[in-house]
C-alpha cells in the first residue's frame, strides 16, 4: 500500500497509490492512515482519485480510520470515482464522510 503525501494549507493530503482497496491491502491501508493520525496530523484529506474499487474490508478500514481520528481532527475524502461514490452512497457512508471534488476544495473546508 503506497501513499503520496503533500500539504495544502493546513491539511495533509494523502493520495492512495492503489487501484483496489480490498481485503489483502485493507489492514495496511488502515495502519498507514492511523500512522498519519498518530503522527499528529489533525486535518487529513484522503485523495481516492486512483482508487477504482473498495470492497467490504476496504470500507471497514476506511470507517475504522475515521473513528480513529475521533473528535481531535478531521478526515475527509476527495476525488472519489463513480464506483467508489456509489458504494459510499449505497452504504450511506456519504452521510458520515465529507466528500469533495478536488484536494484544494477539501483542504479549504478544513482551514
Amino acid at each position, binding site marked *: 500500500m503506497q501513499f503520496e503525501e503533500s500539504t495544502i494549507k493546513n491539511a495533509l493530503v494523502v493520495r492512495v497509490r492503489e487501484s483496489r482497496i480490498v*481485503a489483502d491491502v*485493507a489492514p495496511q491501508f*488502515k495502519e498507514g492512515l492511523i500512522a498519519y493520525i498518530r503522527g499528529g496530523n489533525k486535518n487529513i484529506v484522503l485523495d481516492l482519485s486512483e482508487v477504482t474499487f473498495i470492497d*467490504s*474490508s476496504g*470500507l*471497514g*478500514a476506511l*470507517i*475504522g480510520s475515521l473513528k480513529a481520528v475521533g473528535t481531535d481532527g478531521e478526515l475527509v475524502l476527495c476525488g472519489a470515482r463513480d464506483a467508489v461514490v456509489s458504494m459510499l*452512497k*449505497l*452504504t*450511506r*457512508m456519504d*452521510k*458520515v464522510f465529507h466528500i469533495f471534488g478536488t484536494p484544494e476544495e477539501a483542504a479549504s473546508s478544513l482551514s
Partner: protein
Amino acid sequence: MKILLVDDDPVARSIHSMLLHAQGHEVVEAADGEFAWQLVEKGQIAFVVSDWMMPNLAGVDLCRRIRAAEFEHYIYVILCTSKGAKADLIEGMDAGADDFLVKPISPEEFRVKVRAGERVLSLQQGLSDKNRELAKINTQLHSAHKLVEDDLKAAAWMQQRLLPLLTQHAPGVRCAWRLQPSGYIAGDIFNLFALDDEKIGFYLLDVSGHGVPAAMMSVTLSMVLTPDATQGSPLKRYDAVAGNSQILSPEDAVRELNRRFQSRDDRYFTIIYGVFNVRSSTLSLAQAGHPSPVLLRSEEEPVILGNGGMPIGLWPEIEFDCFDISVSPGDRILLYSDGVTECIGAHGEAFGEERLLICLREQQSLPLEELLTRLLAEITAWHGNSEFTDDVSLLAIEITNEGIQYRDSETNPETQQTYKRRKSDAV
C-alpha cells in the same frame, strides 16, 4: 576423511597410502575391485581412489557399479591410469569417474586432486543437509496445513448444519436456499423461523471480509438471531407492563443489532431482516447495507426493493431502509448476497443486478427449488466455475395459502427427518 584406496600393486598402494596419511586422511585398502565393492557396499565410504587395471573387477567397472547403486550419499571417484589415453578418459568419465590421475603419480598432483574431491564432497554434504532440512520442514508444513484444512472442513460441516434451521414451524411460507462458500466456510448466513403464531421472521446477512473470522461472526449471529436466543433475542423486547415479550419491527430489531454489534475491529455485516405477518399478509423489511431484495409476482416484472442503508456495526447512528409491502399467495421474495451481483465473469465484468433481473424474469414461473437451481447455474456459468471469490447465497421465500409448507434442502436429510417427525406428531 576416510578414503578407500584400491590397487593390486602393494608398492603403489603403500606409497599412495602414505601420501594420504600425510594429508591427515584415514585410509582403507583393497587389493582388487571386488573386495573394494564389498567395502563400499557396507557404507561409510565417500571417497574412492582406484587403479584402473586390476584383477576381479577393473577400476572403471567398480566405478560403474558405484554409480548404478545410487547410494544416498555421493561417492567421489578418482581413477588412476598408466596410459592417460584420451579413449580411457572418455570411458572413465562415462563410467562416472570424477577425476583421473596418471601413473606414475606426482605427490603434488595427488594432493591437490584429493583436496578438490574433498571440496566437492563437502559442498555435496551441505546440499544434502539442506535438502533434508527442507524435506523435514515440508513435512511439518504439510501436516500443519492438513490440520488447518481438517479443522476448516469440520467447521464447514458444522456451519452447513447450522444453516437454515428450516425445521421450525412456519405456516404460510415456502422457502428454498443455496449457499456456495468462497472457501470452506462462509461469512454469509440466513434463516427463517416462526416468531409467534402469526409472524415469520427471516434474514440473510453477509459479514465483511472472508475466512475464519467472518465465518465465526456469521455463526455467532445465527445463534443470536433467533426468537428464542438464550441471552435475550434482539428480535424481541420484554414488555414489563404487559408481562410478555413483544416482537420488534424489523426497523427496531436492526437498530438493536447495531447497538449490540458496534465493532471494535472494523468488522461489520449487511443484512436484510424481514417479518411476514401471515394474518395481515404484510411483509416488513429492513435493509442495512445489503443488496436490494427482488419481489417476484406472477405476470409482473421483477421489482427491486429498497435503496441500501448503512451496514450494521459500522457507525453508531445507523440510517437504513425500511418498507412494508402487501403480499398475496404466490408472491415471492429473493434475498441474496453481493457475491451474486459482484460475481466476476470471464471478461472481468460483474454479474450485476440487471442480469439477475433478466434471469429471474425468464425463470420466475418455475417452482422455487428449480428457480434457484437455474439461477445458481447461471451465476456459475457466468463465473466459469463454482470456485467463487465471495460467498454466493440465495434465500427465496414464497407466500402460500397453505398451512405448514416447507421445501427443505435436499442436501440436509436431518432437517427433513425432523420435519417428517413433526408432521406425524401433528397427526
